């Protein structure tokens, strides 16, 4: 008797009871449901919600693996124990030490995100008496990738409960949410615990602990030898303070060997994942392309303002405004947000024309918030959440416009 029949027996045993959804969910997660439809015509397709989500998760796995290595790499680099990696296949990047530190930090984030999120989903399914919805599969993977590596686990757990309950379940569960749940979780963390979500101490594992160690040593009056402060500033944070690109080259930014949230640094891997999603027709190329265009347009406008001399170096916006317009695509979470979050089919616009408008505004507003609001260094989160709210409105006007145009055509014909 294998696992499958055991699960099937459990499912049969609890059929019709309150706990049925929980057992059904475990069964159908691992195996294809064995129920068949009997009458009427049906469209048959292999890609149900679970398979769709699995493809997104497959696209996320390279980012996760890279993020694990990067967490370890940034940690050792900041400690000064290794040389900077040269290029994507740099020998000091893909090492066992980096992997171990990264796994030690990142794996708990993944476990907490999935554990807490799925627990909330199961509780709601049992209370509401419906099947467990698959919506959390992708969210659970996105969440650990968009938080700083040192995020305390209990904060993540609180944020996940908040995000899933207030962001999704109160609206009716998967498919009914207005806001992207993963970004709701990040926004909650960001506003609730700003000291853990921004600044120059949270992006590299150990920076905060080192600061505390220095404080303790100072208090005790002991020697500070070997206790240099670690600065793990992100490029965005540095630009916002007019400090330039630090020591990072453009190729570093593209490969992603820079400090940042766990899985969003590597533009290269995100680009590949984006192509994969477009190829499998899961992600919308319209949204991805138009966001990039929107960001570039906004970046160009800012570059134009700089070259026209309206803003001088003394301005606090100078650093980010003078950033070359295409660098904006490489730094911060822009690429990650555009590929994985703006394209969320539930919260994005549904119509093709709407997708163009929606995507363009996501890109445009991201860069605008990035430049004008240094208190919130990452604009893409707020831009996507804002456009999530407007997506149904955009769709409404696109559909109405279509109706009007066709009515006009009808009148011309009949006249």
């Amino acid at each position, binding site marked *: 008797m294998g696992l499958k029949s055991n699960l099937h027996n459990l499912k049969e045993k609890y059929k019709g009871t309150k706990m049925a959804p929980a057992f059904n969910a475990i069964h159908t997660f691992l195996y294809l449901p064995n129920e068949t439809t009997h009458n009427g015509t049906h469209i048959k397709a292999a890609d149900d919600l679970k398979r769709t989500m699995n493809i997104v998760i497959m696209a996320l796995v390279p980012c996760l693996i890279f993020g694990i290595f990067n967490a370890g790499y940034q940690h050792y680099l900041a400690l000064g124990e290794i040389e900077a990696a040269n290029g994507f296949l740099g020998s000091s990047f893909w090492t066992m030490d980096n992997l171990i530190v990264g796994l030690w930090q990142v794996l708990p984030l993944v476990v907490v995100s999935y554990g807490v999120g799925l627990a909330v989903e199961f509780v709601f399914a049992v209370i509401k008496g419906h099947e467990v919805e698959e919506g959390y599969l992708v969210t659970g993977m996105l969440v650990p990738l968009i938080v700083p590596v040192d995020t*305390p686990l*209990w*904060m993540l757990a*609180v944020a996940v409960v908040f995000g899933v309950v*207030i962001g999704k379940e*109160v609206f009716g569960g998967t498919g009914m949410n207005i806001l992207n749940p993963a970004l709701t979780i990040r926004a*909650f963390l960001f506003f*609730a615990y700003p*000291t853990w979500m921004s600044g120059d101490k949270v992006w590299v594992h150990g920076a905060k602990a080192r600061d505390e160690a220095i404080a303790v040593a100072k208090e005790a009056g002991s020697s500070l030898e070997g206790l240099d402060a670690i600065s793990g500033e992100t490029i965005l944070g540095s630009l916002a303070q007019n400090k330039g690109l630090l020591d990072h080259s453009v190729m570093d930014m593209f490969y992603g060997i820079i400090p940042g949230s766990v899985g969003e640094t590597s533009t290269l891997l995100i680009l590949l994942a984006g192509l994969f999603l477009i190829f499998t027709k899961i992600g919308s190329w319209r949204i991805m392309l138009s966001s990039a265009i929107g960001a570039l347009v906004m970046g160009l406008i800012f570059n134009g303002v700089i070259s026209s001399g309206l803003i001088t170096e003394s301005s606090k916006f100078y650093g980010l405004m003078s950033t070359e317009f295409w660098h904006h695509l490489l730094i911060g979470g822009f690429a990650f947000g555009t590929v994985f979050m703006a394209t969320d089919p539930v919260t994005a616009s549904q119509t093709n024309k709407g997708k163009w408008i929606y995507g363009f505004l996501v890109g445009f507003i991201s860069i605008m918030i990035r430049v004008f609001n240094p208190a919130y260094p990452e604009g893409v989160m707020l831009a996507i959440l804002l456009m999530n709210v407007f997506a149904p409105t955009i769709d409404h006007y696109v559909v109405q416009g279509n109706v009007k145009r066709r009515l006009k055509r009808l009148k011309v014909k009949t006249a």
Partner: protein
Amino acid sequence: MGLLSKKDAALIKDPLADNNPITIQVLGICSALAITAELEASIVMSISVLFVLGVGNVVISLMRNIIPSKIRIIVQLIVVATLVIIVDLVLKAFAYELSKTLSVFVGLIITNCIIMGRFEAFALGNGPWKSFLDGIGNSLGYAVILIIVGFFRELLGSGTLLGIPVLGDPIEKTGLYALGYENNGFMLLSPMALIVVGIIIWIQRTRNKDLVED
């Protein structure tokens, strides 16, 4: 028989739960969002509204037969404005710091929908005693929600209650903070008040299905 007849008691009891001005009638939301970051401010605001609404309802009820209906809103405004100015001056005189925290929101009691709503819906058509009870009942209903929201926002947002630290000292890292707990800054921002009020509405309607609108 107690002090109040059954009908009179209902005037006090209903607004506390099944006809709550904030969670059911959805009035007076603005002040519930704005000043509930601290429990003390919530309590003072509740007392102010209790005074204004209790006295205002009686005054309007006494004048109800001589107010020409065409200008009744203006008359009501004058009554509220007078009472609010009294409250404002008393606060400034005896609780200056608090009055600064509440800032314009004391003045904005004038526009608190609960007050005009009760004048219009109740005091204009009922006697002074009933109007008084109605005013007290509604402001108590308002107070209950304000105090619940203020309690959670101050406890989770600042780790204090009425300004007294209850979860330990965040700087010295004592109590809960020694375990790594941190205050939730989001709780101090107004959107969280909206969410807390939403959760109260959610719980209330889950317990009493009659309140659910389609």
